[in-house]
């Protein structure tokens, strides 16, 4: 299985489209960091607002932690569009290129093939989040230094310096898991067709529709909202509550993992039964 995953990773990193995600994330992060460095304290004053009238704010509030939080908050909704470019191509791309014929005539089970490709899509999703973390966190700290983290989450919360890193690690892991759901969705569509464009566009369309439904304040939509995976794109924020809400965290993990497992299960079944005609 390790060999198969290595081969799949090698194959995807030989494709130009794989780097689009990394380039886009780098550009966005650096752009936001540049904008923040130009805007300076105006960015944090929006949060502290009237509090500044009653309290004296000391220390470096506009720091690398705050910038990283802002970046994750701003661009997590856009990363799915970068992930589907790769995940949607993993199966359909082989069909388009006709390479199933050389791949599936090797002494490797179809389940191993589909599992290795799926795991590759998950690894890619986490790599993209890791890249986002490195750029926003490390570069953020270099550019803006460290300090207390101030966030607006059911009220204004200020975290002490030594109470921040673990929250970010868990937040990035949770954000990665929500991106894995996106990868699983695109991967599922990729198993249905023989051209990568279809799965990419369909997965993007579903994310957009679900995101819109989640945002519309109508009772019916609010009823189904908890079942939509897009609703959990911001679950990483749960790690920035003053005291962690474990019920919500477990619920989020369950919904995201449930989506991933169910989508992979269906994909594996389809792939096992599929006649390779390309």
């Amino acid at each position, binding site marked *: 299985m390790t*060999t*198969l995953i290595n*081969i799949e990773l*090698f*194959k995807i990193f*030989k*494709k130009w489209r794989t780097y689009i995600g990394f380039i886009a994330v780098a550009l966005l992060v650096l752009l936001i960091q540049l904008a923040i460095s130009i805007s300076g304290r105006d960015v944090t004053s929006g949060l502290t607002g009237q509090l500044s009238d009653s309290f004296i704010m000391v220390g470096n509030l506009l720091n690398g932690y705050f910038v990283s939080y802002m970046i994750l908050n701003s661009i997590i909704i856009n990363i799915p569009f970068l992930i589907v470019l790769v995940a949607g191509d993993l199966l359909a791309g082989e069909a388009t*290129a*006709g*390479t*199933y*014929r*050389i*791949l*599936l*005539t*090797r*002494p*490797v*089970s179809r389940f191993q093939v589909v599992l290795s490709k799926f795991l590759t899509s998950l690894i890619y999703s986490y790599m993209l989040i890791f890249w986002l973390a490195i750029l926003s966190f490390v570069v953020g700290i270099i550019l803006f230094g460290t300090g207390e983290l101030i966030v607006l989450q059911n009220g204004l919360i200020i975290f002490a310096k030594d109470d921040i890193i673990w929250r970010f690690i868990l937040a990035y892991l949770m954000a990665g898991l929500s991106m894995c759901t996106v990868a699983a969705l695109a991967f599922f569509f990729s198993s249905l067709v023989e051209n990568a464009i279809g799965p990419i566009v369909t997965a993007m369309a579903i994310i957009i529709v679900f995101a819109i439904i989640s945002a519309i304040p109508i009772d019916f939509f609010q009823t189904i909202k908890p079942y939509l995976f897009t609703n959990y794109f911001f679950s990483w924020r749960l790690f920035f509550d003053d005291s962690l809400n474990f019920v919500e965290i477990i619920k989020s993990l369950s919904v995201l993992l449930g989506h991933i497992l169910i989508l992979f299960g269906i994909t594996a079944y389809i792939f096992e*039964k599929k*006649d*390779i*005609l390309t």
Partner: protein
Amino acid sequence: MNEEKVIEILGLTKKFKNLIAVNDLDLTVYKGDVFGFLGPNGAGKSTTIRMMLSLISPTSGTIKIFGKSLLSDRKYILKKVGAIVEKPDFYKNLTAYKNLSILGRLSMGEVSRKKIMEILELVGLEKRYKSKVKTFSHGMKQRLGIAQALLHDPDLIILDEPTTGLDPQGMKEIRDLLVLLSREKGKTIFLSSHILSEIEIIANRMIILDKGKEVVEGKVSELLNKNKLKVTFEVDDNNSARKILEGTVWQDKIYSSIDNKIVFILEPEDISSLNKLFVENNVAVSAVIPTRSLEEYFLNITEKSI
């Protein structure tokens, strides 16, 4: 002949909605055979090969390779099989070397650089090992296809029209290679083609498939029996010619007679005797066209399929 069965197919059928691509096919290939799998385009050859490699599942029937069921022992079988299925497609953005390296690792776990270079040399691509496959011509891809099929030294080689797209010299080289693999290395070769002459040169046994059904199966030497020919004599005067033949042994050998063409079923040595008879009796013969009956039949079904 060694009677160890390498491939045994029984009642193989594949239906795609309303189309029956392969219909109740029985087929046996023995160890050391170069087995010709002949049929016009659309006869069901590639569908059969895809089923033999578990790329598609049969609607009914069984496939046994090396005495084991493809359904239950797929991995064991594929370890010992090298194949080209239809046109050779590879990872275009990777080099020829890297493609073989990946495929070798999937087949054998690990494959040495020496082994890959040996195979590339065998198919004449050693100088292009660093080139990306997207820069290859169809013929070069075909050669690389053969290389990947031979890379893990398989006992059974399944080749789906391997000479398509090659120039005459390339075709000859591949045929020579197949003969070498069969005679000197004892490989069993299952060779699909729509060219009868190609099968005739290489194969010892063959089957002809048409519209998914077996037409004929047997030894090539028997099926293409050169002792019985259908020979067309084109004469200037059919009536005179028929009169000369009356009461002779030749009359019973007439197959058909239309216009100025009289078709006989003859032994090869009869042709000159009959020609002499016509000439001595002042019947001008403008052409003598020998055709083997199976060849004619195959040409007919091939033409119909175009």
